[in-house]
């Protein structure tokens, strides 16, 4: 049982040298360790990406600032975007999924453990490749160095003639390599969820986290692949003299945009759907009610997955598509707001009539609801194509997507951190520090990203290393920059809380939250094999059935 497992682990740990322990981590195929490695890697990259953002915000605090040169600034926004999307957000959602999915479906590991490890190392190596560009890229006019073409790298700026040296190639190859890792992870998720559920766990009885990760993995399969294809084409252009996006030879810059955004839009759903999953696990437990409308939540997510493959050109409204093209993508983008809105209502419905406890995971999920609502509404504004002609390419859209990625995605990830930290480490985090983290972060977030909408509406484009005084942008940029510092402090508190609690936190026990899914039936942390005997389940909340044998779920589902 648990006590024996932990005792065994301790004995085993005591006899192992640092080298052996490190070797154990590097060669592991255990999904729990790989999940933790994904998460730690992402946290390190978060700090680096945050430094890049801070450098930009200092430069933009006042007009005509000289904190960094235009070349450095342009590298900063490219690296910041690329890092945050591919080496922070994706590894975070993959890491949590890798850790949780086998536990939640009652399996002992992922379907393909070695592929799991390979996928992680591909992702990690991709990040190293990207950052190696700082020292490895060379070329004319000092044009090498880190990539400076923006995270979506529009052609023909990425052609050899406009981007000399190897900086763009580092960008392209890093994404190609980490893309293979992403696809491998997706294959693993799909196979585990379809083929390794424990007896009794039909598709209609698995936790929402499993369903949503299934949809997400399907999107990765369909969306990351076009990016892989586009990177291969770009490399053929740059290395072999191809003309895919070579406008001087008749190639099409717009084709790159289509290919990129066919990836780029589903990508943001790849990031946000697992966050919906976290909210769908946390909100019920801290409201003490089951998720409201489980079948509709599944259906809405599947609908979002499908529709998300049809909206991509809303990133291209200003590019000169025909009015019919613009109209089509307007309507698909507006339609996707319906299933998304349904989910918000279902979460509110879950809280309704409950007994809400305001621990850190729930606080972050409530902030998620509020901020995701606003992000979705600014998204509706952007979906109206003519309005988009003013707002796109400006700080309004930068504010919108940060609202989603920071205000919804990162915030739910913080919630997930606090919720599953006890399970992963066996210790409770410090609730006071977590509350400090929460409030400081929310204040800093709103300072930055609420007010960032304004310069966009006043005509400030994005990706500019400086701006003219007298256009009314100064005060807003100053406030935005101050908020960034506040968020940075909050994140430092968060990291400190994690580290401190890992060593000094109270022992958590198996089930500190009185929750209902299978992972809470294991010890904290779970043994290597997860379950001594594979569980058999009868409802969506197997532990509720155990704790309430007089009133089990399977009578009502």
């Amino acid at each position, binding site marked *: 049982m648990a006590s024996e497992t932990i005792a065994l682990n301790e004995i085993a740990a005591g006899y192992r040298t640092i080298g052996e322990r490190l070797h154990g981590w590097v060669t592991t195929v255990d999904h729990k360790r790989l999940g933790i490695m994904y998460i730690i890697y992402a946290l390190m990259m978060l700090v680096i990406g945050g430094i890049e953002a801070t450098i930009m915000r200092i430069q933009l605090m006042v007009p005509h600032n000289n904190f960094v040169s235009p070349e450095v600034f342009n590298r900063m926004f490219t690296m910041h975007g690329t890092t945050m999307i591919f080496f922070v957000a994706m590894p975070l959602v993959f890491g949590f999924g890798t850790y949780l999915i086998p536990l939640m479906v009652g399996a002992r590991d992922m379907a393909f453990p070695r592929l799991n490890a390979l996928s992680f190392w591909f992702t990690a190596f991709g990040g190293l490749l990207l950052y190696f560009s700082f020292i490895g890229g060379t070329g004319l006019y000092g044009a090498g160095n880190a990539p400076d073409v923006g995270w979506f790298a529009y052609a023909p700026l990425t052609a050899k003639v406009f981007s000399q040296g190897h900086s763009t190639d580092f960008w392209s190859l890093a994404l190609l390599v980490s893309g293979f890792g992403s696809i491998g992870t997706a294959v693993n998720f799909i196979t585990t969820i379809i083929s390794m559920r424990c007896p009794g766990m039909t598709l209609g009885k698995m936790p929402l986290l499993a369903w949503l990760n299934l949809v997400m993995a399907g999107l990765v399969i369909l969306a990351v692949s076009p990016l892989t294809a586009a990177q291969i084409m770009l490399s053929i252009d740059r290395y072999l003299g191809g003309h895919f996006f070579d406008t001087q030879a008749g190639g099409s810059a717009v084709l790159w945009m289509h290919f990129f955004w066919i990836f780029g839009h589903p990508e943001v759903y790849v990031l946000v759907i697992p966050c919906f999953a976290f909210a769908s696990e946390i909100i019920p437990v801290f409201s003490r009610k089951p998720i409201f409308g489980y079948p509709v939540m599944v259906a809405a997510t599947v609908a979002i997955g499908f529709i998300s493959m049809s909206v991509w050109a809303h990133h291209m409204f200003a590019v000169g598509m025909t009015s019919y093209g613009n109209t089509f993508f307007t309507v698909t983008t507006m339609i996707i707001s319906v299933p998304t809105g349904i989910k918000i209502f279902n979460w509110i419905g879950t809280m309704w009539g409950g007994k809400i*406890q305001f621990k850190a995971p729930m606080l972050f999920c409530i902030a998620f609801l509020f901020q995701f609502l606003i992000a979705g509404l600014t998204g509706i504004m952007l979906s*109206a194509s003519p309005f988009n002609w003013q707002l796109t390419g400006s700080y309004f859209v930068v504010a919108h997507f940060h609202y989603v990625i920071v205000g919804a995605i990162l915030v739910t990830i913080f919630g997930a951190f606090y919720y599953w930290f006890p399970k992963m480490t066996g210790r409770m985090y410090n609730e006071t520090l977590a509350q400090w983290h929460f409030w400081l972060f929310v204040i800093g977030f709103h300072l930055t990203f609420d007010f960032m909408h304004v310069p966009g509406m006043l005509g400030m484009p994005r990706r500019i290393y400086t701006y003219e005084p*007298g256009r*009314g942008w100064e005060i807003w940029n100053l406030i935005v920059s101050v908020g960034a510092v506040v968020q940075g402090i909050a994140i430092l508190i968060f990291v400190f809380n994690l580290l401190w609690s890992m060593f000094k936190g109270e022992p958590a026990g198996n089930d500190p939250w009185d929750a209902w899914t299978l992972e809470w039936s294991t010890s904290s942390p779970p043994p290597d094999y997860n379950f001594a005997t594979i569980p058999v389940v009868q409802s969506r909340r197997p532990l509720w059935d155990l704790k309430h044998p007089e009133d089990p779920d399977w009578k009502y589902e």
Partner: protein
Amino acid sequence: MGEVAECGPDANPRAGSKQMKRSEQTRGVWGRVFAGAALFVCVLFAAKICLADPAGPSQIPNIFKPDSTPADSIFRLSKLVLSITGVVFLVVFSLIAYATVKFRRRGNDDGSEPPQVYGSNQVELAWTVIPGLIVLVLFLATARVILSVQDAPKPTGAIEVVAIGHQYWWEFRYPGLGVVTANELHVPVSDPQHPTPTFIKLLSADTDHSFWVPRLAGKTDLIPNHPNSTWIDPHETGLFLGQCAQYCGVQHAKMLLRVYVDSRPDFDAWVQQEKQPAVAADAATEGRHIFESTACINCHAVSGTVADGHFGPDLTHMMSRDTIASGAALNTRENLRTWIQNPDSIKPGSLMPAMKLNNHDLDALAAYLETLR
């Protein structure tokens, strides 16, 4: 089954973590609600302030102060969109706030679980259908504006301009009027009764750019090998500011735009002036000689002389412009000298090379350029 009680609500598994006192919980909740509301009200006020007019109204490229039909159509659509999203926000925010406050666990809670509700078909149907209807209304309103702006017919009497984007400056040609200029666009004011809009064809010589003058129209990209077009019909004279809105390289930030809306007589006079070749001013022949014998003519054109380069801006009437380097500096003798001698100090990374002339030559050259009115 005995283990269950240890994890159940009666137990205190959160050993070591303080249970929040009721007052703390309440404060936490209300604090959250108020903070959220306060912050949003602040934003609204801020928006109102910025949308009101501080000094120099036309200098602020405010998308909510349109002065041309495309920008105006967008503005009117945006009012509908903002109203609808505003109402949705208020409704849903109220629901979230209410749920958070009303259904919080009280301090005197008995630890029992609340009624376990799994869903409700009627409610879920309602909150599917109503958003669907809202989307339908929004879409229809939007589609009308897309068609009216993008597919607007070009009336006779429209001014035709071809804008060619370069790294990091704007080339403007008026094919029907025989005018070539750079960076500062002159258009006539358009009377709504008898419109004289300006239709701008958008091309690019190198990478992607975007033409954005917020008070006049939404932005449209300039993409090589993919001609686009946009149009404006400003209703008031004045200077309207904008800049390139698609990252095009290292000096994207300083590819600024100035649109001068002139009265019709002023515009016609400007056209007449621009059509003339450069006047050969004898006092500046030394500078002209330097211009024509160093690398200047490889990139620049001065009509009526041997200078016929197309890589850089046409300089025939450069003194009629208020700025140089695509708006990066005012057109003064000092700035002109700096720009020729060391462009990186004004626009580091621009494609203008440092000419490295000695002081005497530099003065002569600047004097010559100043004759190009």
